[in-house]
């Protein structure tokens, strides 16, 4: 099996190189086959590795030492254990479906841009695989940076539009801010442990003083905040919707943004040492979940609603990690990948049918013309809202139970966020798929169901959203708690302490009933809405305008930085440095002109200079010691 491990990232790398270098001579179908085929191959290898890990446990494969100095080694090594194989399956599986979807969604592009798209997607999958397969924090960081880069490249894919470029820059810069924290954490780990390898770090972790553990984990969390869009570094994710919809599905729903979750789940040993960091993670996760959910309630762009929904669900995942339920966090990553990718791809199908329109005030009643899209979208909405026995229900309930065991106060806030989730998702679904059509006549005529390449991934993901939760069905319902047991060697299992089975039952039942009531109420409000302006006043406007956080960042950070840069450019650079450099040149010119006048061609002048020079030499020679002492005093 060790021989197969390197194939998993190798295939996407080959796809990236071929599609990137040969995109002009290749045809679109060749590019599609290569681009999607390599991911399929990686997926097949991942399945083989999964069965191997299930039987034999994890392995570490060392290739060569990147840094190899006296006593300090950083190897390029892959660690395939239970945690990374789950992520591998998610990345390659959902990634393959999205590649398949993209072959049809992006077919209007010209061939070399089409090839560029697929090469960037493959590079992204390669970097993400590096991230989850790395055996130490340095390899993870390499993948971390790679996915940040690909996110930038793909958000700014339609580079001729300035605002998309701005959004791509924003995403990259905010990522980098988080990366500073991650780097500092890596340096601290290297200083404390002398190595960055997971096995060695976690074996020695208990020897750390709590202050060090707190600092390291908080710095790691800063990295996660940047990558996974938590408060305060989340504003890039809604703007990242400028990229093509499959990109939003893959990168900003299923995979890249979950890198932070992976990192924290992987470092669970360190986090268990420090209660302060766990509290911080949980509270920031919960706050983000609520904040993003409130903003999503009043957004009018399909993709923006889904983007804020992603931020909110990531907040849930961080909440799970913060209260110590690491497997639940990973489980929610998995189910979220299914239903969020489904929702984004469904939104893409809707946008495709509407001829590029993304504003839900212009949609409505699409379920008649787009049956498959609407059914799969409805399944996705049910999953995310926690309709009983969908995958989202099981994972979200586990998170809520774990939160309740940790702190009942946080539990009620989390329930509030879950209720908001149901409300805004059902609002979205009702406004898009039911009611009267609010668009123009040309759009009405253009409405058609999407081609099968767009629909097959939707159907597969819908099935997974429905049944995917059953791998972690709690024993209460007769399930096997499989994921918990599977991940147990790497991630501590969630033990459901502090809450008896009966209490859990009542809460789940109560939660389900309340949820259904909310759903019913939302349906009544938004069903058969034929008039929907989408303009809001008062408090709703504050929510629709995203709590003015972007404007706040603009005033506090962006504008001062810009004026500082302008000052440096016009004053320091132009008047300062340029003046010095140009002045040196001018000075040399001037002095050479003056010195040239010495060559007068008159012998008498030359004799005069000779005499003067000899006089000076004589004086220096006479006063040698004094001059040497004087020079020594200066220097």
């Amino acid at each position, binding site marked *: 099996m060790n021989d197969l491990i390197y194939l998993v990232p190798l295939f996407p790398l080959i796809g990236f190189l071929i599609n990137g270098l040969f995109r002009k001579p290749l045809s679109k179908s060749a590019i599609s086959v290569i681009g999607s085929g390599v991911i399929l191959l990686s997926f097949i290898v991942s399945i083989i590795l999964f069965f191997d890990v299930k039987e034999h446990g994890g392995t570490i494969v060392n290739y060569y030492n990147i840094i190899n100095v006296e006593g300090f080694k950083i190897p390029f090594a892959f660690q395939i254990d239970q945690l990374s194989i789950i992520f591998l399956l998610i990345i390659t599986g959902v990634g393959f479906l999205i590649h398949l979807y993209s072959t049809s969604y992006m077919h209007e592009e010209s061939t070399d841009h089409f090839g560029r798209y697929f090469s960037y997607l493959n590079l992204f999958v390669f970097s993400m695989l590096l991230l989850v397969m790395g055996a130490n924090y340095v390899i993870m960081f390499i993948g971390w940076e790679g996915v940040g880069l690909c996110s930038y490249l793909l958000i700014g894919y339609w580079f001729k539009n300035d605002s998309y470029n701005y959004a791509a820059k924003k995403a990259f810069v905010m990522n980098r801010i988080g990366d500073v924290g991650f780097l500092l954490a890596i340096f601290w780990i290297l200083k404390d442990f002398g190595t960055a390898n997971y096995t060695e770090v976690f074996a020695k972790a208990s020897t750390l003083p709590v202050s060090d553990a707190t600092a390291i984990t908080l710095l790691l969390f800063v990295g996660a905040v940047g990558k996974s869009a938590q408060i305060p570094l989340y504003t890039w994710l809604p703007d990242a919707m400028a990229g093509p919809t499959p990109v939003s599905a893959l990168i900003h729903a299923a995979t890249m943004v979950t890198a932070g979750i992976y990192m924290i789940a992987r470092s669970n040993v360190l986090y268990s040492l420090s209660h302060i960091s766990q509290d911080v993670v949980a509270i920031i996760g919960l706050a983000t979940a609520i904040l993003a959910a409130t903003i999503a309630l009043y957004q009018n762009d399909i993709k923006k609603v889904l983007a804020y929904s992603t931020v909110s669900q990531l907040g849930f995942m961080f909440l799970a990690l913060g209260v110590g339920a690491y497997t639940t966090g990973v489980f929610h990553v998995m189910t979220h990948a299914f239903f969020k990718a489904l929702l984004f791809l469904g939104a893409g199908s809707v946008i495709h049918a509407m001829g590029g329109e993304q504003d839900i005030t212009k949609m409505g009643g699409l379920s008649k013309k787009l049956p498959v899209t609407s059914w799969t979208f409805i399944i996705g909405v049910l999953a995310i809202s926690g309709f009983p026995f969908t995958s989202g229900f099981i994972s979200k309930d586990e998170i809520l139970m774990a939160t309740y065991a940790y702190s009942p106060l946080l539990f009620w806030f989390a329930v509030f966020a879950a209720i908001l989730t149901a409300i805004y998702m059902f609002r979205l679904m009702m406004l898009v798929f039911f009611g009267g059509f609010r668009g123009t006549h040309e759009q009405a005529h253009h409405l058609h169901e999407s081609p099968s390449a767009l629909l097959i991934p939707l159907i597969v993901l819908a099935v997974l959203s429905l049944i995917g939760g059953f791998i972690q069905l709690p024993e209460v319902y007769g399930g096997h708690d499989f994921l918990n047991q599977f991940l147990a060697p790497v991630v501590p299992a969630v033990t459901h302490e502090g809450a008896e089975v009966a209490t859990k039952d009542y809460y789940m039942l109560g939660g389900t009933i309340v949820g259904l009531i909310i759903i019913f109420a939302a349906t009544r409000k938004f069903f058969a809405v034929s008039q929907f302006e989408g303009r809001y006043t008062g408090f709703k406007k504050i929510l629709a305008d995203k709590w003015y956080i972007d404007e706040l960042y603009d005033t506090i950070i962006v504008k001062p930085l810009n004026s500082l840069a302008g000052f440096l450019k016009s004053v320091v650079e132009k008047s300062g440095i340029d003046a010095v450099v140009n002045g040196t040149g001018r000075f040399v010119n001037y002095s050479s002109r003056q010195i040239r006048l010495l*060559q*007068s*061609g*008159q*012998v*008498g002048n*030359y*004799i*005069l200079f000779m*005499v003067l020079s000899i006089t000076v030499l004589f004086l220096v020679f006479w006063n040698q010691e004094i001059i040497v002492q004087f020079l020594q005093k200066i220097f």
Partner: protein
Amino acid sequence: MPIQYYIALASCLFCIGVVGVLTRRNAIIIFMCIELMLNAANLLLVAFSKMEYATAIANKTNLTAGTDAQLFVFFIMVVAAAEVSVGLAIIVMMYRNIHSVDVNFLNRLKH
């Protein structure tokens, strides 16, 4: 006589010679000034030689002190003579060509 008088005299002679070389236009006058500089140096050497002999006599030591400087004076005179002969030969050639001994005429180094 104290040695400072000799030093002062020799310095004055030397400076007059230098100024003469720099300032005069007639080539033969310039030669005279060069001779003046050389003789100033001779004067200084002889004076110092006598000073050394006088201190040696006073301490009743070496009776042949100070002869090195007198030897050097002879060398300087020989060199002066040789140089004058060569220099005057050049001036004669110059006069034959341009019928004047004005050195300012020779500012050809620039063109």
